[in-house]
C-alpha cells in the first residue's frame, strides 16, 4: 500500500516538475518605482538587485530607479543600509514602489531545510540566536553557548571539566526515559549529538557512569565561530516536517558562507582563563585517628595528636580530629612534630585553566562562485590537572550564486577533538570523590614515591587526587567529517528542485588508563575503544513559491528523505598492566572479551507543506510527513504526522489600530503531531551473554579465550507490536512590535501531550522480566515562553548616540505524568538503590527518592529521646530536580565603537541531590560540620507531641551515624542567578584604520560567572554526574564550575 502511494507520489511529482519546467517563456521589460522609508522619506542610493545575480541599479537622489528585468518571475531585492531588505516578485507590474522600514519588522528567518522565510508568515514559535551571541560567550560547547538565550530552552552543564557534556531540552521533557534532546541540523543535515562513552559496553565497575562520569556530547566538535545563525524551532508545528527526529525540537544551524567580492581575511584570537569555584569546606579541623593508629604517623604521647573516636573504627582518616588551636596545646605534639601545617587541598589541586582559541578565515567570490575557508584551533587546559581538550576545525564552503538554473552549494568540515578527562563520580578512582574529603592537615602535593607509586596517608588507601590526575584518565580522539552537497535546479521562476546529500561520519578512539597501584584497581586497567558513527542523509525536495494574484501567495515544499545511521563500537579491554605506565593491550594479564555494539537504524520519509498567504494579513500552513522506521516491525513502521498553523497579522487586518504605536501585531495558533520511533532491536526477544555482577562492584567477567560462556534471556522483554510515540501539541502565541519596533515582545503558550510513550517500563520481577518495552503512558508539558526586547534609548530619542538594548527571556514548563502503564508506579532514571532519581506517577519527573525524616500529619519532625529527628520507616520523595522557571536578562549598551553586554541567567526552583555533601559531612570536611561540638535543638515535636527541647551535640557520631544517613538532608535548592556573561568590546573607528590595510579591528574582554547567587553548598549548582542523560540534578564528585576571564582580538582585512 505504502509503496503504491510512494510510487504515485513520485510520478506525480516528476510529471509536475517536468511539465512546469518546460512551460515558461521569457519576456523582458522595464520596471520603475520609488523607494521610501516607513516615514515616507525617499531613500537615495538604495540598491535594487535582481535576486541571484549582481545585476541591478541604485536609486537616485529622489529614490527613483529604473531597471530592465528578464521575466515576470524575476524577484527584485531592495536594500538600504541599516534596514532589512525586501523582496518583490515582479509579476505583471511595471511600477513597483517599495517601503523599507528601519525596524526589524520584516525579519527573515531560516526554517526547515534551510528555507528563508519571513517570520511574519510563520504560525509557530521560532527564535534565533545570532553568531555574535554564541561566540561572545567563549564557550567550548555550543550547547553551553545557548544557555539562557532562548525562551523555552533549558541548558544544563554537567560540570567544569574541559569537554564536559551539556544537556539541552526544549519545552520540557518529552520522553520518559528516551532521548528528550533536540535534533541539531547543520545546513539541512542532522548532526549526531550522542554521548559516546566506551565505558557503557563494559561489564565491570568502569562500565557505569556512576563510577566514571559522562564523556562529551558530540556537538562539542563544532566550533561556534563557523555558525552564521541559529534558529531554534520549539514546537511540534515548527518541526513536524522533520518527522520523528524533530519531536524534541530542532536547533537549525546555518554556517557562514562566502560573499561575492574581494577576498576578506578574518582573524580572531582569544585567551580564556578559568578558575575553579570551590566553596563549602571547613578549614579548622584536622585529620582524626583511625582505629589505634594516629594518622600523622606517630603514636599517642609521641606526637599523635588526634583524640580517639567513640567506638571502634569511628575515625577513619577523616577530618574529625582536633582543631589546629586545640592541637597546638598538646605538649607532646609540639615536642615531636611542632605546629602542624595546614593546607588548602582544594586550592592546591586545581589550577588556572587556560584556553587559547584562534580562528582564521578567508571568504570571497568570483564570477558566479563564492567560497569561505576557515580554520580554528582551540587548546584548552581544564582546571583539573590532566584534563584538556584540543579542537581543530577546518571548514571549506564552496558554492555558486548565479541566475543560472543550476546552482550548487557544498561544504566540507573536518573536526578533530581530543579530550583527556578524569574520572568523576563515586569510587576510589574518581578524583573529586577523594579530594572533597581530603583533610587540611595532609599535604596533597606530596603524592608520589620515586618509582612513581602512590603515597597514601591512610591505611584505608585513599587515592591522592593529584596522583590520580597524573596516572589515570579517559581520553578520546574524534576525527569527524561532515560533508554537505546541495544542488538545486530552478525549474522556473517559482519552482526550484533541490537535492541535499549529507554525510556525518566520525571515529572516536577512546582510551582508559588506570595505572598500577590505583586503590580500588590495584592491578591497573586499560581499554582501547573505537566508536564509529556514520550518518547518511539525503533529501530531495522541491520548493514552490508563487504569487497567485494580488491577494494570494502560495508556497510549498514537497520531498523525500532517506536517513541511514550505522554505529559500531569495539573495545579492547585489558585488566592487569604488565608494569607501570604500560597500557599495551597485548601485554595485559587478562584480556576481556568485550562484545561489540552494532546499531543500524534507517528511516525513509515523504513530506509536503503548503502555505497560503492572503494580502500579507493571514497565513495558513499545513504540513504532512510520513516516516517509515526500521526499528519497528513491518506492520507498524509507517507513521503520518500532520500539522496546521496560522498567523493573523492584526495590525494589517484592523486598520483602526494606531500604526505609530502598534507597528506590528501578529497572533498565531498551531496544532501538530510529531513522534518518535524505538531504539534498534527492541521488538525481538534477545539473549545476552551472562555477566554475573552484584550491583556493588564485584563481577565475574569472561576473559578472551575462555570457553566457559553462559547465556541468559535479556531481563527486558521485547515488544513485537511496538508502535511509535505520538506527540500532539497545541500552541498559541503573539508577536507584537510597538513604537516602530523599538519594543518587541513574543509570548507563546503551548500544551503538548506525548502518548504511547515507548518506555522500557519496570515491571515486577516475578513476571520473569525486570522491565519490558511498552507503548504506555501519557505525559503532558505545558508552558509559557516570553521574550521581550526593548531598544531603550531609541524609544526615547532616535538620534541618541547611546544604544541600550535589553532582552528578557522567560521560560516556564509544567510537566505532568498523566498516566503510566497500569500497575506501574515509577521508573528509574539514575542513581543508586537509594537515593535515586526517578519518574513517579504521583510526584512527577526527576523526583529524588531516598531516606527521609519522619513527620507527623502536620509535617513536623518527630524527635526521639536523644534529640535526633527520627528517620522515616520508608524511603520516599525528597525533592524534585525540575526547575520552576528560567529567566535571563541581556543588556547591550553600545556607544560608537564601544559595546558592553551584561547577561544574567537564572534558574529558579529545582532541587539538587548533593551526594558530595553526604560524603563530606561523613568525612568532616563539609563546612556545615564546622559547628561540631555545638548543641543543636531540632525543630519538631517529641514523641509525646510537645515541642522538642532536647539538645543534641553535633559531633562526629551525630554526623556520621545520623546526619549523613538521611538522604533528605542533602537535597539542596538548585536555584541560581548568574552573571553568565559580561563582555566589553571595542571596534576601532574606521578613520583610524583607513591608512592600514585593515577593515575592522576589535577587542573584547569577557567575564563569565563573575557573580553567582545560590544557596547551594558548593556555590555553583550546575553539575551532574550523568552529563546530558535523563537523570539530572545528581551532583556527585563532578568537577566544579568555573569563573572565567576572556580576552579577544578580531581583525578583518
Amino acid at each position, binding site marked *: 500500500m505504502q509503496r503504491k502511494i510512494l510510487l504515485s507520489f513520485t510520478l506525480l511529482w516528476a510529471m509536475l516538475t517536468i511539465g512546469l519546467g518546460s512551460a515558461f517563456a521569457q519576456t523582458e521589460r522595464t520596471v520603475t518605482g520609488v523607494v521610501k522609508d516607513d516615514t515616507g522619506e525617499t531613500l537615495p542610493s538604495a540598491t535594487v538587485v535582481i535576486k541571484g545575480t549582481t545585476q541591478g541599479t541604485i536609486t537616485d537622489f529622489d529614490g527613483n530607479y529604473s531597471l530592465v528585468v528578464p521575466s515576470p518571475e524575476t524577484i527584485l531585492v531592495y536594500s538600504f543600509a541599516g534596514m532589512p531588505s525586501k523582496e518583490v516578485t515582479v509579476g505583471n507590474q511595471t511600477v513597483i514602489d517599495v517601503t523599507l522600514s528601519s525596524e526589524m519588522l520584516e525579519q527573515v528567518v531560516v526554517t526547515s531545510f534551510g528555507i528563508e522565510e519571513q517570520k511574519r508568515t510563520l504560525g509557530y514559535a521560532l527564535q534565533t540566536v545570532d553568531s555574535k551571541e554564541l561566540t561572545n560567550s567563549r564557550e567550548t560547547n555550543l550547547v553551553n553557548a545557548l544557555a539562557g538565550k532562548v525562551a523555552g530552552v533549558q541548558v544544563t552543564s554537567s560540570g567544569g571539566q574541559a569537554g564536559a557534556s551539556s544537556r539541552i531540552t526544549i519545552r520540557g521533557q518529552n520522553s520518559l526515559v528516551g532521548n528528550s534532546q533536540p535534533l541539531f541540523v547543520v545546513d539541512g543535515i542532522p548532526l549526531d549529538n550522542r554521548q559516546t562513552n566506551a565505558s557503557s559496553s563494559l561489564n565491570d565497575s568502569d562500565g557505569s557512569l556512576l563510577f566514571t562520569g559522562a564523556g562529551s556530547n558530540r556537538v562539542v566538535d563544532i566550533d561556534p565561530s563557523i555558525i552564521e545563525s541559529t534558529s531554534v524551532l520549539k514546537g511540534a508545528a515548527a518541526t513536524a516536517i522533520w518527522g520523528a527526529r524533530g519531536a524534541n525540537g530542532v536547533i537549525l544551524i546555518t554556517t557562514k558562507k562566502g560573499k561575492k567580492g574581494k577576498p576578506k581575511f578574518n582573524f580572531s584570537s582569544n585567551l580564556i582563563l578559568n578558575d575553579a569555584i570551590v566553596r563549602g569546606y571547613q578549614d579548622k579541623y584536622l585529620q582524626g585517628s583511625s582505629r589505634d593508629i594516629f594518622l600523622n604517623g606517630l603514636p599517642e604521647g609521641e606526637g599523635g595528636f588526634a583524640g580517639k573516636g567513640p567506638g571502634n573504627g569511628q575515625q577513619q582518616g577523616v577530618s574529625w580530629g582536633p582543631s589546629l588551636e586545640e592541637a597546638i596545646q598538646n605538649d607532646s605534639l609540639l615536642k615531636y612534630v611542632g605546629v602542624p601545617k595546614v593546607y588548602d587541598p582544594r586550592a592546591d589541586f586545581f589550577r588556572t585553566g587556560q584556553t587559547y582559541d584562534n580562528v582564521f578565515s578567508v571568504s570571497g567570490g568570483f564570477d558566479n562562485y563564492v567560497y569561505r575557508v576557515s580554520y580554528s584551533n582551540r587548546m584548552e587546559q581544564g582546571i583539573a590537572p590532566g584534563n584538556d581538550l584540543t579542537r581543530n576545525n577546518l571548514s571549506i564552503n564552496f558554492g555558486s550564486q548565479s541566475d543560472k538554473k543550476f546552482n550548487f552549494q557544498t561544504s566540507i568540515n573536518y573536526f578533530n577533538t581530543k579530550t583527556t578527562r578524569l574520572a568523576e563520580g563515586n569510587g576510589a578512582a574518581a578524583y573529586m570523590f577523594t579530594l572533597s574529603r581530603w583533610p587540611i592537615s595532609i599535604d596533597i602535593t606530596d603524592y608520589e614515591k620515586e618509582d612513581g607509586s602512590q603515597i597514601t596517608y591512610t591505611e584505608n588507601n585513599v587515592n591522592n587526587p593529584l596522583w590520580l590526575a597524573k596516572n589515570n584518565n579517559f581520553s578520546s580522539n574524534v576525527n569527524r567529517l561532515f560533508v554537505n552537497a546541495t544542488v538545486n535546479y530552478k525549474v522556473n521562476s517559482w519552482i526550484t528542485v533541490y537535492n541535499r546529500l549529507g554525510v556525518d561520519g566520525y571515529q572516536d578512539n577512546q582510551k582508559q588508563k588506570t595505572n598500577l597501584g590505583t586503590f580500588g584497581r590495584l592491578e591497573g586497567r586499560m581499554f582501547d575503544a573505537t566508536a564509529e558513527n556514520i550518518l547518511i542523509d539525503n533529501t*530531495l525536495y522541491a520548493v514552490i513559491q508563487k504569487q497567485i494574484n494580488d491577494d494570494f501567495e502560495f508556497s510549498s515544499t514537497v520531498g523525500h528523505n532517506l536517513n541511514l545511521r550505522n554505529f559500531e563500537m569495539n573495545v579492547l579491554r585489558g*585488566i592487569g598492566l604488565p608494569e607501570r605506565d604500560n597500557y599495551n593491550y597485548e601485554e595485559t594479564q587478562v584480556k576481556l572479551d568485550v562484545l561489540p555494539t552494532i546499531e543500524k537504524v*534507517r528511516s*525513509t520519509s515523504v513530506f509536503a507543506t503548503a502555505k497560503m498567504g492572503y494580502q500579507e494579513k493571514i497565513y495558513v500552513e499545513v504540513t504532512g510527513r510520513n516516516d517509515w522506521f526500521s526499528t519497528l516491525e513491518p506492520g507498524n513502521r509507517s507513521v503520518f504526522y500532520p500539522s496546521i498553523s496560522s498567523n493573523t497579522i492584526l495590525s494589517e487586518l484592523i486598520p483602526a489600530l494606531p500604526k505609530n504605536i502598534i507597528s506590528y501585531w501578529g497572533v498565531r495558533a498551531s496544532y501538530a503531531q510529531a513522534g518518535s520511533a524505538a531504539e534498534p532491536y527492541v521488538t525481538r526477544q534477545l539473549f545476552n551473554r551472562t555477566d*554475573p555482577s552484584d550491583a556493588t562492584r564485584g563481577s565475574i567477567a569472561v576473559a578472551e579465550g575462555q570457553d566457559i560462556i553462559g547465556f541468559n534471556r535479556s531481563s527486558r522483554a521485547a515488544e513485537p507490536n511496538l508502535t511509535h510515540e505520538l506527540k500532539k501539541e497545541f500552541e498559541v502565541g503573539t508577536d507584537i512590535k510597538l513604537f516602530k519596533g523599538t519594543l518587541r515582545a513574543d509570548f507563546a503558550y503551548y500544551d503538548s501531550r506525548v502518548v504511547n510513550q515507548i518506555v522500557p517500563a519496570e515491571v515486577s*520481577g516475578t513476571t*520473569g522480566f525486570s522491565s519490558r518495552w511498552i507503548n504506555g503512558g501519557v505525559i503532558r508539558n505545558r508552558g509559557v515562553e516570553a521574550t521581550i526586547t526593548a531598544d531603550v534609548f531609541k524609544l526615547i530619542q532616535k538620534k541618541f548616540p547611546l544604544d541600550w538594548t535589553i532582552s528578557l527571556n522567560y521560560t516556564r514548563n509544567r510537566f505532568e505524568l498523566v498516566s503510566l502503564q497500569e500497575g506501574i508506579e515509577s521508573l528509574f532514571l539514575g542513581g543508586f538503590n537509594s537515593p535515586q532519581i526517578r519518574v513517579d506517577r504521583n510526584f512527577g519527573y526527576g523526583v529524588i527518592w531516598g531516606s527521609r525524616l519522619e513527620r507527623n500529619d502536620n509535617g513536623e519532625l518527630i524527635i526521639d529521646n536523644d534529640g535526633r529527628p527520627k528517620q522515616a520507616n520508608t524511603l520516599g520523595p525528597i525533592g524534585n530536580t525540575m526547575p520552576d522557571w528560567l529567566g535571563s536578562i541581556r543588556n547591550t549598551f553600545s556607544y560608537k565603537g564601544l559595546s558592553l553586554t551584561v547577561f544574567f541567567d537564572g534558574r529558579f526552583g529545582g532541587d539538587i541531590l548533593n551526594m558530595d555533601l553526604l560524603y563530606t559531612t561523613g568525612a568532616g570536611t563539609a563546612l556545615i560540620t564546622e559547628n561540631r561540638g555545638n548543641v543543636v535543638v531540632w525543630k519538631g515535636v517529641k514523641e509525646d507531641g510537645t515541642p522538642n527541647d532536647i539538645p543534641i551535640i553535633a559531633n562526629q557520631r551525630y554526623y556520621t551515624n545520623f546526619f549523613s544517613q538521611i538522604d533528605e538532608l542533602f537535597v539542596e535548592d538548585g536555584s541560581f542567578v548568574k552573571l553568565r556573561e559580561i563582555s566589553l568590546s571595542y571596534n576601532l573607528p574606521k578613520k583610524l584604520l583607513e591608512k592600514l590595510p585593515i577593515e575592522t579591528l576589535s577587542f573584547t574582554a569577557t567575564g563569565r560567572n563573575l557573580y553567582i547567587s545560590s544557596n547551594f553548598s558548593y556555590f555553583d549548582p550546575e553539575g551532574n554526574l550523568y552529563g546530558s542523560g535523563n537523570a539530572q540534578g545528581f551532583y556527585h564528585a563532578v568537577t566544579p564550575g568555573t569563573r572565567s576571564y576572556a580576552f579577544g582580538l578580531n581583525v578583518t582585512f
Partner: protein
Amino acid sequence: MKKINIYILSLLLIGPFSLSSCEKLLDVNEDPINPTEATEELLLTGIQQNFSFEVLGGIPARMAAGITQQTRYQIFQSYDDYFITENDVDGFWNDFSYVGVMANCKILSEQAIAKNKNYHAAIAKIIWAQNMAMITDAFGDAPFSQAWQPETYPFPVYDTQEEIFVGIQNLLDEAIAHIDDTNQSAEVPGSDDLVYGGNMQKWRKYAYGLKARYYMRLSNAPGYNAQTQSQLVLDAVAQSFTSNDDNALYQYSSQLLQENPWNQYAVNDRWNTFTVPNAVTYKSNLLLVNNRDLRLALHFRKSDPDKNGFILQTNDNGTVNLYLDPAPYNNQSLLGVLYADSDSPLPWLMYSEIKFLEAEAHHHLSNNSARDEAFRGALEADFSFIRSFLNKIALTEEDRSALSNTAALDEMIQTYIATIVERADYTTLMTQKYIVNFLSFESYNDLRRTGIPELNTPDRSVLKDRFESDSIALRFPYPSSEWQYNPRNVATRNVPLGFSSMLVPVWWDSKE
C-alpha cells in the same frame, strides 16, 4: 529540454531507488551481537554462573551473615544492625532471582523437555527450587504459581509460604524423576555443568539433600511437627550425600575478575574491606573450647601475617598439644581463606549440612546415639574439608613447624570434636551447625527456626532504635520493585513497607 531532463534525472536518482526498495531497506532490525535464542548448554552455564555469584554468594548471603552476626560492617549502619531497606533487597528478589536465575530455569526446563534433554531440565528445576526457597525463606509469601507468565499474569499474586514449599518439593521430585527417566537425549550435561560436570547421580543426591533441608525447615511451622518432618528428613538424607566427595562446590579462580564473590566483596579491595568477621559474637561462639577450634584460623584472616597463629605446647608428660593463638584473629581480621580467597570455592550444598540435618532429625525423634553419631559425622566432614585449606593460611615459620606435627593436629581436631559431641544437647548441635555454615544463608534460617545461637541485640539495631525491639530481623522487607510494580498483591500480605516489616515473622517461624 534535454538538458533539463538530465538534471532532473540526476536529482531524482536517489529518491526512487530508495522508495522502490523501501521494505528491504528497512529490514535491519536484527541485532548482530545478541541472538534471539540460546542452547540448553549455554543456558545451564549461565544459570549456574548467576546463581552462584549473585545469589548464593551475593547479597542475600551478605545480609544473612550480618543479621546472624557472623560478619560486621565496620563503619556505618549496615546489615548487622538490620539496616536493610526495601531498595537493598531489590536486586536479590528481582534481577538476581526471579529474573536472572528462575526465569531462565523455566526457559531451560521447557526447552530441554521439548528435546528430551531431561538432565538439563533436572538441574534447572533443582536450582529453581533452591532459589525459590531462598526467596520464601527471606520474604515469606511470594509469587510462585503465577510467576514467570508475563502475558497471562502481569501482576502475579502471592502464594503462601506453605504452598511454595509444596511447590519446591514438587520441583525436586520432578527433577529426580527426570534423572531417573530413561528416555533421555544423548546430549547430556558435561562441561556446561560447572558444579558436577554432568554427574547426574550427584545431582540426584543434591536434590534429596535439598528435600531434607526443606522438610526440616517446617519442623516448627504451624500445623506441622518436628517428629513427622524429621522422619521425612531421614528418608531424604538416606538418598543424599555420603561423603565430602559429593560436596557441591562452585570453583572460583585466582585469575583477575574470576575471583570468589566474598573475595571481591570484602577482601581484595575492589569494593571495600569494611565487612569483617564479627570478632565479638562469632569468635566467642567459635572459641567454645580452649583455643582449640581450628576453624578460627580459616574463618578469620590474620590481622598481622607475621604473628604466630599456632602454639605447640609440650606437656609435663612429654606429649605435645597444638593450640591456636587467638590474638591475630581479632577485630582487624578480614574474612578467612576458607571462604574468601580469590580461588576459594563457594559451597552450594555440603555433606556436613546433610549430617547435621540427620543429627537434628534424630534429636527430634529422641534417637540420641544416632544423633551423636551423625553429629560426629558432621563435624568430621567439616574438619576434613577445611584441613585441605590449611596451606592457604599465612603461616609464620613457627606456625609451619607447629602444623607439621600431624599427630598434634589430629589430636587437636579429634579432641575438639570429642569434647563437642560429648555435650551434644540441641544448643550445641545447632551452634555447631551455625559455625559450620559460616556465611551460608542457611545460618539465618536455622537461627530463626531454632533461636540458636542466642545473640545480643546490636547497639545500633534499627529495630531497637525505631521500635524498641530486641528482635533480630525476622525477614527481609518486601522489595521496592514490588511496592512499585505489583503494589496491590504485595499489600495483601499484611507486611508493612519499611523497617517495621522485619518484626513480622515468616510463616514457618510464626508458631507461638
